[in-house]
């Protein structure tokens, strides 16, 4: 008899405490989900925070069940991390596109400048000619002038050839970019390591 009374009291106490616990949980749940959403949103870039804060608050309210809401709020932290990585990749991708367009143009300018310098720059021969004019009988000086002149000629020719190569390559790359040659653009994307662009590929996970 006493045992059954104790058992009954125990059942009533358990029921009452579980009701109290459930009420407590329901009361604290909005605050908890709010905190979880805030934690998730903090992982996103500044410009995305307001959007996702409101969107996810609305999403959580539509998830059925109090425990379901908590689980969904935890999941948002994972979503925020993945979205952040995605946005970072996009930024790097934009950088890759910008760089691929900028580099050939910059190289083209440098090559043209080098070419101009090679043509009209400091001519070593001028220095020796002026000294030669001082003493035309100095045979050693004449030899040195010839040697330097030949070296200068060779360096200038090599430089000019290199410049022409660079100018031609840069011109073709710029042209390919501007004409939107798909193969070149694809190569630019794929050669940029951090960019993950797949063309017509389907993954079965």
């Amino acid at each position, binding site marked *: 008899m006493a045992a059954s009374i104790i058992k009954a009291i125990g059942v009533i106490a358990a029921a009452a405490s579980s009701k109290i616990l459930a009420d407590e949980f329901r009361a604290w749940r909005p605050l908890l989900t709010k905190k979880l959403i805030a934690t998730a949103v903090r992982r996103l870039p500044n410009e995305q925070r307001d959007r996702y804060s409101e969107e996810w608050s*609305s999403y959580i309210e539509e998830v059925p069940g109090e425990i379901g809401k908590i689980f969904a709020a935890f999941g948002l932290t994972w*979503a925020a991390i993945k979205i952040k990585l995605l946005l970072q990749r996009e930024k790097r991708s934009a950088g890759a596109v910008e760089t691929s367009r900028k580099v050939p143009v910059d190289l083209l300018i440098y090559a043209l400048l080098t070419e101009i310098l090679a043509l009209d720059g400091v001519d070593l021969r001028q220095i020796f000619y002026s000294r030669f004019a001082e003493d035309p009988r100095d045979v050693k000086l004449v030899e040195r002038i010839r040697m330097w002149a030949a070296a200068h000629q060779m360096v200038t020719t090599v430089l000019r050839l290199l410049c022409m190569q660079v100018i031609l390559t840069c011109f073709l790359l710029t042209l390919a970019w501007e004409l939107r040659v798909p193969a070149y653009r694809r190569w630019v994307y794929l050669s940029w390591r951090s960019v993950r662009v797949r063309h017509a590929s*389907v993954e079965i996970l």
Partner: protein
Amino acid sequence: MGHQIPRITTQTLRVLGAFTNSQPEELSGAEIAKRTGLQSGTLYPILARLEQAEWLESKWESGDPHELGRPRRRLYQLTGFGAKSARAAYMEVTEMIGGPVWQLR
């Protein structure tokens, strides 16, 4: 952003499937989650990826949050380009697995 092709996974196809079979055409995140059975941690990165690739576009539902008495929903919709690309992806996967995509669960 240009039209770059997003990574297509079975979950992505399920999200796209929710739109292609949807009435109305605009769906909130919760509605998509209900239709696809995906959890928030999987669903939102997919939505972000598809939006980035311009397969989806999103906008706030009309109305003021104070008048609505709750935060506004963000509504997602397939773009014309997205609808075309989704169909192509379905066909590709269907061809690969020799059956409807919906078997991939």
